[in-house]
């Protein structure tokens, strides 16, 4: 089989923070009632992390669960495991009103690393990124300039951001511009 290629092929930029495109990541949209034990078990079974509460994202390495809306989860696994993970979830969810779809290749993943990471995102998104308001483990779906994105904080000074693959170059350009050395605001 041919090798999966991500939108920008792991391009990186070193500004006052480091921006890198992460390469292929297995991503599965799971829709269903979060209160159902079948949905919880299906999600935690393949992701290997605890079920997230409202606006929480739990990520360990390439695996994780993100709360996307009251009836939607983003399940992350290594790229090669996505199809088996979907099959495994579908068998767990047999008879439950739900939907699991492999959307890995529909998205691009970026990492923003460095002490100014909050500032780079705050320049682009209408979100309170102060250390009191946005803590590791929080996910926020919003817009970056003109396109929808979602980002979460892996640990202090490290964010992961996902956007649609078709706008990956636009988002990378945005992040580069926001991270140009000399453009630090020093707000946070």
């Amino acid at each position: 089989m041919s090798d999966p290629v991500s939108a920008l092929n792991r391009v990186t930029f070193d500004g006052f923070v480091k921006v890198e495109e992460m390469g292929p990541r297995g991503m599965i949209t799971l829709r269903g009632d979060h209160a159902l034990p079948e949905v919880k078990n299906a999600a935690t079974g393949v992701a290997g992390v605890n079920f997230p509460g409202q606006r929480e994202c739990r990520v360990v390495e390439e695996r994780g669960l993100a709360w996307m809306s009251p009836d939607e989860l983003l399940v992350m696994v290594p790229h090669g495991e996505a199809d088996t993970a979907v099959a495994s979830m579908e068998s767990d969810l047999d008879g439950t009103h739900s939907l699991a779809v492999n959307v890995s290749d529909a998205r691009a993943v970026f990492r923003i690393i460095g002490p100014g990471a909050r500032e780079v995102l705050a320049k682009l998104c209408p979100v309170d990124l102060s250390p009191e308001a946005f803590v590791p483990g929080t996910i926020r779906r919003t817009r970056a300039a003109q396109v929808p994105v979602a980002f979460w904080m892996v640990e202090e000074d490290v964010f992961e951001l996902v956007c649609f693959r078709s706008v990956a170059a636009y988002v990378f350009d945005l992040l580069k511009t926001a991270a140009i050395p000399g453009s630090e605001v020093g707000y946070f």
Partner: protein
Amino acid sequence: MLILTCPYCGVSGEETEFHAGGEAHLKRFGPGSSDADFESYLFHRENPKGVHFERWRHVSGCGKWFHAARCTTTLEVFGTYTAQTSEPPQSIKDAITAKRPGWTWRDFA
């Protein structure tokens, strides 16, 4: 700039993250209804100076539709509430009454 709180994901965001969906609590008149009812459903909208009820969608966020009660003159938001209702909940009505005693909007007061 409006600051709206999505009742589904709890995010307080500014209005560019949301999309306005027109007047709230319209009752649909479809096939079989009178011409007057259909005309009213299709065309007649409130355009108040003051308390107003609207539908909004958290378009760049969780994607859910919800309702908002706000003032069109001050941009004050009295509250947001679920889309799964045909009438504002009492708590929203009370919040409006506290700020704008004697308000009315269509059949609500």
